[in-house]
């Protein structure tokens, strides 16, 4: 295998376009990574504004700002936007920037496919968001678009949503294939699979899950389209179909999707914790096996989203146990992160703060997940704000915090400048406090029985909702500091040098900051690969 692994870039002749064409036609993994990250940041704010309208409506009981039908659209569009257009593209953006740098490659393996994967997304976003301008409004069946809400009772915009999902699916699958091929085929000759950085490992497994899961979502969306327009009966019991079938197909995609959004964040945290503990990652190999085990099990747990739809008892018991079993590899990871910090020489720069808060808060989300995994208890919790609290602890303080940690960690590498640490500390503490003000009370409201996805609520939930809404606005506004920090760092600042973090190891830190146009024009030597690899630490 390693005989032909000589990677030298041919002389770049036509690789420098200027102006707008540079960004539209680019095949450079760093430029495409930047496009992904900027796009996902814009979509984070778009989805965030929808969330703030929801929180403004819920600030007090009664209907103040929006009508119930529009509220349904808000909930639906918030979910779809955050999942498919903010979190997932941000993760792919990180992969684009970092994977070639971390494995010693000149670029992604299929650069034009890479460009295509990105540029599909803005058009998908357009198709999705145009629903707000159509008669009867934007899609309103929830991001999960259960039949028959999405078949019999849904507005015309649902068809635009279905095609947006198809396009986003193509984008994800192409992006994932590119990542798999890059990792398998473009590693520096001296880098064995087992020696790859954890971020690369988690992305390899995530990309596999994407190729496995996204086509199934496309299938579900196609069946909804056919039921809506071509007279089929997939989800219509009168014709021999079953609405519950939709949920099975959707969640066969949907549960791996949850891990698709969290595994790269695991990878980020596994890079940051050792760097700021100045110790190698504890139980490195077990971390890789744990990620593999989580991914393997993620395709056997989907029906835990459906405990209340009337599954046979045997199915409920099976899915309850498999779901609880996932806590074992997840527990291994949390234990290993904590053990890495044990007796390390810790410092608390912004990336480390976000990573540590990730460990705390994601674990809370994991525990509430265990509570929801318990069938009899789930009968009580399902469809309440407890579920909303759970999923936001894993998605916001999990995935999003992981992404923000990654940006603080690698921004000096990408821009060549140090960020303003004082501003970053303000951003962190404001966010970390307000996010708990926002989501923690939802646990109590949910356990007390407040239903989700309803624009009004009973009076006894008023205090918790008011607290949540205040937290939401502080959290949302705090992110403006983040944007300001990014703009500042991109425009200038103290030079970062090749290795701005003294404890950081990995091939990306052997390149200057910012890295040259095609990252590793020649592959790094075995000596460098070994010096930056895990053997050196141990």
């Amino acid at each position: 295998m390693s005989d032909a692994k000589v990677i030298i870039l041919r002389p770049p002749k036509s690789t420098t376009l200027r102006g707008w064409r540079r960004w539209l036609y680019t095949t450079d993994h760093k430029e495409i990574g930047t496009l992904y990250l900027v796009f996902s940041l814009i979509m984070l704010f778009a989805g965030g504004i929808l969330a703030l309208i929801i929180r403004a409506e819920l600030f007090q009981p009664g209907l103040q700002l929006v009508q119930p039908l529009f509220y349904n659209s808000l909930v639906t569009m918030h979910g779809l936007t955050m999942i498919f257009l903010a979190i997932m593209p941000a993760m792919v953006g990180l992969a684009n920037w970092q994977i070639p740098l971390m494995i010693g490659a000149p670029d992604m393996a299929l650069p034009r496919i890479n460009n295509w994967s990105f540029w599909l997304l803005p058009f998908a976003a357009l198709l999705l968001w145009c629903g707000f301008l159509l008669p009867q409004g934007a899609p309103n069946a929830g991001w999960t678009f259960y039949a028959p809400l999405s078949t019999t009772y849904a507005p015309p915009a649902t068809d635009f949503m279905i095609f947006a999902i198809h396009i986003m699916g193509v984008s994800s699958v192409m992006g994932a294939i590119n990542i798999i091929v890059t990792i398998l085929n473009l590693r520096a000759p001296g880098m064995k699979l087992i020696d790859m950085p954890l971020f690369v490992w988690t992305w390899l497994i995530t990309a596999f899950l994407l190729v496995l899961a996204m086509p199934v979502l496309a299938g579900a969306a196609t069946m909804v389209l056919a039921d809506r327009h071509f007279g089929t009966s997939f989800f219509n019991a009168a014709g021999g179909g079953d609405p519950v079938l939709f949920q099975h197909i959707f969640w066969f995609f949907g549960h791996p999707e949850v891990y698709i959004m969290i595994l790269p964040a695991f990878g980020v945290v596994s890079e940051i914790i050792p760097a700021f503990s100045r110790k190698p990652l504890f139980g490195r190999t077990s971390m890789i096996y744990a990620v593999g085990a989580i991914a393997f099990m993620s395709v056997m747990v989907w029906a835990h989203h459906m405990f209340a739809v009337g599954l046979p008892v045997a199915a409920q018991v099976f899915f309850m146990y498999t779901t609880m079993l996932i806590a074992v590899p997840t527990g291994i990871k949390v234990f290993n992160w904590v053990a890495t910090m044990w007796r390390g020489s810790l410092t608390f720069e912004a990336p480390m703060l976000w990573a540590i808060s990730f460990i705390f808060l994601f674990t809370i989300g994991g525990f509430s997940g265990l509570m929801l995994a318990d069938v009899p208890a789930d009968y009580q919790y399902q469809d309440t704000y407890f579920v909303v609290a759970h999923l936001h602890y894993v998605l916001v303080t999990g995935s999003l915090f992981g992404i923000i940690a990654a940006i603080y960690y690698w921004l000096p590498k990408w821009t060549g400048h140090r960020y303003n640490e004082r501003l970053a500390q303000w951003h962190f503490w404001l966010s970390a406090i307000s996010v708990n003000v926002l989501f923690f009370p939802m646990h109590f409201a949910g356990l007390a029985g407040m239903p989700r996805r309803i624009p009004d609520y009973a009076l006894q939930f008023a205090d918790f909702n008011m607290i949540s809404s205040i937290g939401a606005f502080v959290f949302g506004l705090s992110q403006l500091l983040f944007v300001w920090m990014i703009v500042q760092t991109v425009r200038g600042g103290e030079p970062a040098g090749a290795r701005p973090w003294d404890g950081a190891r990995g091939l990306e830190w052997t390149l200057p900051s910012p890295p040259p146009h095609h990252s590793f024009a020649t592959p790094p030597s075995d000596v460098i690969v070994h010096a930056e690899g895990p053997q050196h630490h141990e």
Partner: protein
Amino acid sequence: MSKEHYFVAPPSPWPIVTAVGLSLMLGGFAVLLHGGSMVPSLLGVVVLLFAVQRWFATVIGENQAGLYSEQVNRSFRLGMGWFIFSEVMLFAAFFGALFYVRELAIPWLGGEGAKGAAHLLWPQFVSHWPLLEMPRSSDFDVPSEAMSPYGVPAFNTAILLTSGLTVTLAHWALKRNARRALWGWLLVTLLLGGSFVALQLHEYGHAYRDLDLTLHSGVYGSTFYLLTGLHGMHVTLGVIMLTVILGRSLKGHFTPTEHFGFEAVSWYWHFVDVVWLGLYLFVYWW
């Protein structure tokens, strides 16, 4: 340019134009579904075809110029393999739907099994497959009989299996550099693929006209048409791909040692072949 270099493609307009074409085609189709004009979707198809053609022409040109090393070829191979895996998962969703309604949903509606209480919805409904009497037949086109596995479908199975053989014979011919045999076997494969599609369309006509089996015939019609239709679209795409590589081999492309384009198409062709075997087994026979 030495073969040892990993070729990183220079900037290209075709990916984004492809994205525009695909989005216009699909968005235009949504407009069409709501009584709008056909123009946007047709325009999308034209843009898409044009951009894909330019994109592939660029890749083929680079390949003929000898820019691709063995490592680049390995990227293509791996990429194509994983792409086919994603297609397998797409079909898996539809096969999964078939198995679910067949093994769970319909027996439950007929009063069997753990969720037999569903029988209360339509107490006269008796579980059976192929589903010719729907739980509420008055809402649907009731087919007179199910698709027979004999006749055209059996013949089509033979056609597709034979085409899998002929494409392999073409591959062997290419490997021993027997160009005429290569052209011949490719042409035979192409004709077999085209006949399959034509016969399948003929079957649809038969089903619609004579059996009253339509998309609106309950879940039997739904699974039958979506599974075979999706497969038929893949065969059609495969035929287009075969046409392209036949044209390329006539122009003298592909050598006995380097012919990834050919191999990718033959992998794809074997994939639609295998999917058909699953279809024939589970849609027609089972």
